[in-house]
């Protein structure tokens, strides 16, 4: 089916909410650094994963497992063990970034369906097709850097299904190619499964305003009437050439509701909602809106227009209460 809705499950409660409100599939991670949302209190142990799978499968939906960090040489068996567990549990697919781990998965579990993670940084059909030829991947999640015509060009030159991010936190960098977090804190998404990790965050009230620091580095300072957001490194205010501004990216969310008709037309297989670290309430609201929108666009793509109510609901849930089309829309670049 085109435009499958893939929702984030950081916990069993979120998983059930996503399924109840119309996700076609959910994605989850195990409770360690084998996935890119390795936050304390988040993710699934084996028993919870099994329960989540039962809940989804009983309702005809699918569960995908993110194993999308890069295995480290000293703990290689943690990642291969996770692949083995995924196969044993009956995951509908594993989402991998590392070629070595893909080779292991193909060899040990030839029946296991493989998706190329956004962390694999594949932005061209040549890269996507390499993973197809060598590891038989069925789907690739593209980094949030291509414009829609560029995405279409990828779709046209591969038989791998293409999945795109539709909503949620916006990575301004090519996923898998950003080491800003480890530069500042020692931990990056690639090797530790975290970006701007909470344990490195420090808030201080000062006479100059509320300050957010990451491992001691000042990311931003907020005036009395400014709303402070989570201090993600790339969304701080910095000085460049004597000007202080959001030099890399504003605190904003990606929202591609407007692009749904085009995504349907060019044959996008699935839309991914970011946010395994968000609350079950967030998952509920976002899933509801996106289910309604995807149903509407499939019914009649020509007359599709996102309703003001959907946009208002999504804006409430967005970082900085604003949204952007990101790189799908060329002027953003």
């Amino acid at each position: 089916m085109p435009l499958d809705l893939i929702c984030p499950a950081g916990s069993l409660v979120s998983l059930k909410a996503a399924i109840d409100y119309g996700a076609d599939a959910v994605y989850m991670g195990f409770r360690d650094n084998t996935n890119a949302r390795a936050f304390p209190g988040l993710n699934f142990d084996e028993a919870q994963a099994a329960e989540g799978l039962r809940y989804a499968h009983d309702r005809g939906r699918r569960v995908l497992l993110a194993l999308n960090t890069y295995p480290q040489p000293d703990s290689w068996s943690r990642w291969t063990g996770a692949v083995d567990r995924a196969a044993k549990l009956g995951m509908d697919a594993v989402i991998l970034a590392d070629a070595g781990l893909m080779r292991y998965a193909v060899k040990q579990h030839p029946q296991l369906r493989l998706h190329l993670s956004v962390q694999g940084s594949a932005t061209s059909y040549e890269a996507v097709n390499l993973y197809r030829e060598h590891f038989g991947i069925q789907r690739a999640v593209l980094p949030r850097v291509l414009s829609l015509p560029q995405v279409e060009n990828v779709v046209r030159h591969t038989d791998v299904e293409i999945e795109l991010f539709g909503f949620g936190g916006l990575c301004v960098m090519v996923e898998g190619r950003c080491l800003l977090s480890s530069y500042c804190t020692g931990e990056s998404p690639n090797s530790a499964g975290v970006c701007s990790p909470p344990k490195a965050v420090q808030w201080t009230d000062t006479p100059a305003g509320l300050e957010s620091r990451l491992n001691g580095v000042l990311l931003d300072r907020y005036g009395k009437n400014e709303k402070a957001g989570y201090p993600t490194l790339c969304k701080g205010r910095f000085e460049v050439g004597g000007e202080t501004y959001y030099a890399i990216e504003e605190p904003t969310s990606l929202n591609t509701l407007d692009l749904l008709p085009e995504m349907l037309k060019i044959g996008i297989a699935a839309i991914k909602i970011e946010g395994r670290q968000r609350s079950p309430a967030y998952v509920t609201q976002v899933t509801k809106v996106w289910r309604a929108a995807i149903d509407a666009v499939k019914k009649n793509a020509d007359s599709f227009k996102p309703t003001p109510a959907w946009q208002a609901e999504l804006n409430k849930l967005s970082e900085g209460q604003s949204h952007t089309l990101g790189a799908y829309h060329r002027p953003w670049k």
Partner: protein
Amino acid sequence: MNLSLGPLLYYWARDDMLAFYAEAANWPVARVYLGETVCSRRHLLRLPDWLALAEQLAAAGKQVVLASQTLIESESDLKTLRRIVGDGRFQVEANEWGAVRLLSEAGVPFVAGHTLNVYNPDTLDVLAGLGAQRWLPPVEMSRATLASLLERAPAGMETEVFAYGRLPLAYSARCFTARHYNLPKDDCQFRCLDHPDGLLLSTREGEPFLTLNGIQTQSAGVYNLIGELSALRELNIASLRLSPQSRHMGRVVDAFHAALAGEHKAASALARLMPGQAIDGYWHGRAGLENSMEQHA
């Protein structure tokens, strides 16, 4: 252990680039990486120009490697990539997996660049099977992790380590230099030309933090492993990559060359040639911006 001159990550005036490589022909580097790896809009040297430079440097006894673009977005990016691979005269550094596919299809040995994200020996083995002869670890990899990876590295694989320069940390579809000037990327007016060592980004309390270089974000600090040569030798590292900067590059190369020959004063000579503070946190398994020398002082 010998020296490699990494690809020029910045955008300079054509004459400056030509002069730089004319000088480089006389530097004690075994290998020179050529080509535009950051932004397809930078065109003052086009592929035929790079190939002409490659011939000159090869004639001067350098091993030449053509480095491929790190972020491929358009069909025209792929066209350039195919021409680089198809030329066949020089080895190519693959900086994303599309280039790996083209090189393995062509059946030619290649260099696996540091943005291929090789974090374990199994992935390195996959690349060896596809034709990689030489590789670079991700710049965030520590000495300890590299040591552990190399215990199971494929036979004959040569390792090159990024050992000097501002660290390339991130790539985006967005151009941060154009953004600074409130210009759209498609009409950037090539402002990178005004910043031959990138555009410094500091915190609101004036601490240098990052360097904006078009779509690439670099460290503000200058990674420097000149004090780690014995550790690098112990790991049997084949080459050290020195990343170009606009001033004093010949003297930077000389300092490393002297240090390799055992001259102890070379490291302090280097300190005066760097465009930013020295850093080496990654090598020691810490935050990249840290400097072990500072902590010991």
